[in-house]
């Protein structure tokens, strides 16, 4: 049997070698163990020995040739033995750092560590701690709505929890004031002093008789309403407003602004009227602060907006300084973002007074629960034709009832009545709203 001489591995880090010289010629006798060639590695020159005895029948790799470990470089055969036809072709010239002939089959161990996928987020990346992100995800909170208290505005677990407690998808009564205007701490803290009592579950909306689990929003509404009803001594004052002049003015305004796409609503007029009235009654633009009454420098009107899964309160800031047109445009944008669940942090919270308008639902009158920490809330019913007495005659006028719910710790009936009548006066003499 002919024996192939292969490029030997002479050291653990050798992958290829160069034939420096053959110490035997083709046809020479060689004995096992005898040096037959010199191999150059990148480290040294080393003699290689024959691992078989016989005749060096064929030299395949010539001096100077670089050969990978394991490739045939020569053939030794018995004297007189014929080489078979399958004489190996000359070895391939080694290329660069060719791998050793036999690669240990440890692919599993050598498998590269999977590169971690780096999600490149834009410059508007929200900075939040991992646990804050997890809790937000669990409760479906859009972290863009949460204000971070950590370094670089990082949102922490506490921020998310505070948001959950006070503002998460804020309902009619679920918004806390923003830092500006800064109320006294006690009025900011929405935490009920008395733990919430069990409240009757809202009317089930699913299968009759089935108990629906409370959504996070309903839990918040329940806690906040119970807290307000328990803490705030409510009193109620109702007035009836003749709206014909306001409706006529509104028609004129909308006709004039049609090209701009502006459409002033009754509610926009109520907002404007309430804001102007609050300027004159600063004690109603205030919060009960435990050891004092905190009056607010700005007039920010919260407005309840119906959204698919409940209610949110959006805030028209500095409403007393804004025109009807501005208020109208702002309300359209605020309501749209609220319904799409895309509110900006500035869209909610920080209200100093709240308006709830159920006019579109055909209600004669209703009483709202004070949205803490506000001193009062105005419930606006449907404007509808009613028989009224004017100068001793029964006539038909468009009447709208409004009921103010007040915090008796902050204000009293007389003051509230004066304030409410001022709102009424402004609505009945609507040019005051635009001048």
């Amino acid at each position, binding site marked *: 049997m002919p024996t192939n001489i292969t490029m030997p591995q002479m050291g653990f880090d050798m992958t290829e070698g160069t034939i420096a010289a053959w110490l035997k010629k083709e046809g020479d006798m060689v004995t096992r163990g005898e040096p037959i060639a010199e191999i150059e590695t990148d480290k040294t020159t080393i003699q290689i020995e024959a691992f078989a005895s016989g005749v060096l029948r064929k030299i395949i790799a010539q001096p100077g040739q670089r050969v990978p470990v394991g490739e045939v470089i020569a053939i030794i055969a018995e004297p007189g033995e014929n080489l078979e036809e399958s004489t190996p072709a000359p070895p391939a010239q080694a290329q660069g750092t060719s791998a050793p002939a036999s690669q240990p089959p440890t692919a599993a161990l050598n498998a590269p560590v999977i590169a971690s996928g780096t999600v490149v987020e834009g410059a508007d990346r929200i900075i939040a*701690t*991992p*646990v804050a992100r*997890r809790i937000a995800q669990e409760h479906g909170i859009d972290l863009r709505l949460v204000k971070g208290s950590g*370094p670089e505005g990082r949102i*922490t*677990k*506490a921020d998310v929890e505070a948001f959950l407690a006070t503002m998460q998808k804020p309902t009619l009564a679920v918004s806390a004031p923003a830092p500006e205007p800064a109320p006294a701490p006690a009025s900011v803290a929405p935490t009920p002093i008395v733990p919430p009592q069990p409240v009757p579950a809202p009317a089930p909306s699913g299968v009759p008789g089935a108990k629906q689990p409370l959504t996070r929003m309903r839990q918040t509404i329940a806690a906040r309403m119970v807290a307000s009803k328990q803490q705030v001594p409510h009193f109620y004052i109702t007035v009836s407003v003749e709206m014909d002049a306001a409706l006529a003015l509104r028609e004129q305004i909308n006709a004039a602004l049609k090209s701009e796409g502006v459409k002033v609503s009754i509610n926009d007029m109520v907002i404007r009227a309430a804001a102007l009235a609050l300027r004159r009654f600063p004690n109603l633009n205030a919060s009960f602060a435990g050891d004092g009454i905190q009056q607010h420098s700005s007039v920010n009107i919260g407005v309840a907006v119906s959204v698919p899964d409940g209610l949110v309160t959006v805030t028209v800031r500095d409403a007393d300084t804004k025109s009807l047109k501005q208020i109208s445009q702002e309300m359209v944008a605020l309501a749209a973002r609220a319904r799409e669940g895309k509110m900006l942090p500035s869209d909610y919270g920080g209200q100093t007074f709240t308006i709830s308008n159920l006019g579109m639902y055909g209600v004669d009158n209703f009483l709202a629960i004070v949205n803490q920490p506000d001193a009062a809330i105005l419930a606006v019913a449907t404007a509808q034709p009613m028989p009224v007495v004017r100068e001793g005659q029964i006539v038909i006028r468009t009447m709208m009832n409004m009921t103010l719910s007040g915090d008796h710790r902050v204000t009293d009936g007389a003051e509230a009545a004066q304030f409410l009548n001022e709102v009424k006066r402004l609505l009945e003499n609507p040019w005051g709203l635009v001048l």
Partner: protein
Amino acid sequence: MPEITYREALKRALREEMQRDPTVVIWGEDVVAYAGGGAYGVTAGLAKEFPGRVRDTPIAEEAIVGVGLGAAMGGLRPVCEIMTVNFTLVAWDQIVNHVAKQSHMFNGQIKVPMVIRTPNGHGRTAATHSQNFDAWFASIPSLKVVAPATPYDAKGLLKTAIRDDDPVIFLEHLQLYSTRGEVPDEEYLIPIGEADYKRRGKDLSIITWGRMTIESLKAARILAEEGIDVEIVDLRTLRPLDVPTILESVRKTNRAIVVEEGWRTGGLGAEIAATIQEQAFNYLDAPVARVAGLEVPMPYARNLERATIPFAEDVVEAARAMMRNEY
């Protein structure tokens, strides 16, 4: 329960195990004659109690460890004392290349039931005698590494270490030998590989061991007065780490500070912080912080030494900063 010193607790563990098992021997520099037994008095009196089983050796740490290794292979349970951790460097080849290789490299044919006791620490002894190599030992596969903080843990862990069939690096601390703590008279063992809550709290987790456990407990008392309620996880075993307990605590508090006495770079704190972020990322409310020794060769001067080593006040400062969201 009676209060005894850390030193006395160690001695009781040695005595009880020597009484229990005649193959337990103690070898080391000056464990017999000098100052009545041991540079730090741990073995005082034991040579008289156990003739021929407590022996002074040459000052040749590589041989103390190597001879102990061979004796462990040959059927004894040697407790080798290296006078301070600084001198283990002389025996590093023996520890890493031999002690830690036998069981795995020889495919379970050889077991090495030996304990290497040595103290970390400082005490105005300057650069070559004031070091902590916890992280180095804890990085070596096949070693078990323990570092008890209290007399109770010291006794229970040393007894377990002596009975263990694997080599145990037992890290004491110069500043702990004279501390006192409750140790029951009845026998007890503490398993290797289990951390211990030295304090339960809700605001943040302090993960630490050895002397820094004691400093962290001091810090916890100060912080409690400020309304910061810290939890202290005393690792007790540095290899293998009790990762489940670390994670349990961090998942509860959402904040972690790793407190170690040694150098920060490549410290065990780095490994623990990395493990927390790998396995409890979604529970973190702040970056994992580290309190560690300053990275200088320890100076001799009193004020410089004190500035180099972490104390309770450093832990307090770190905890406050974390609660203020400053990390």
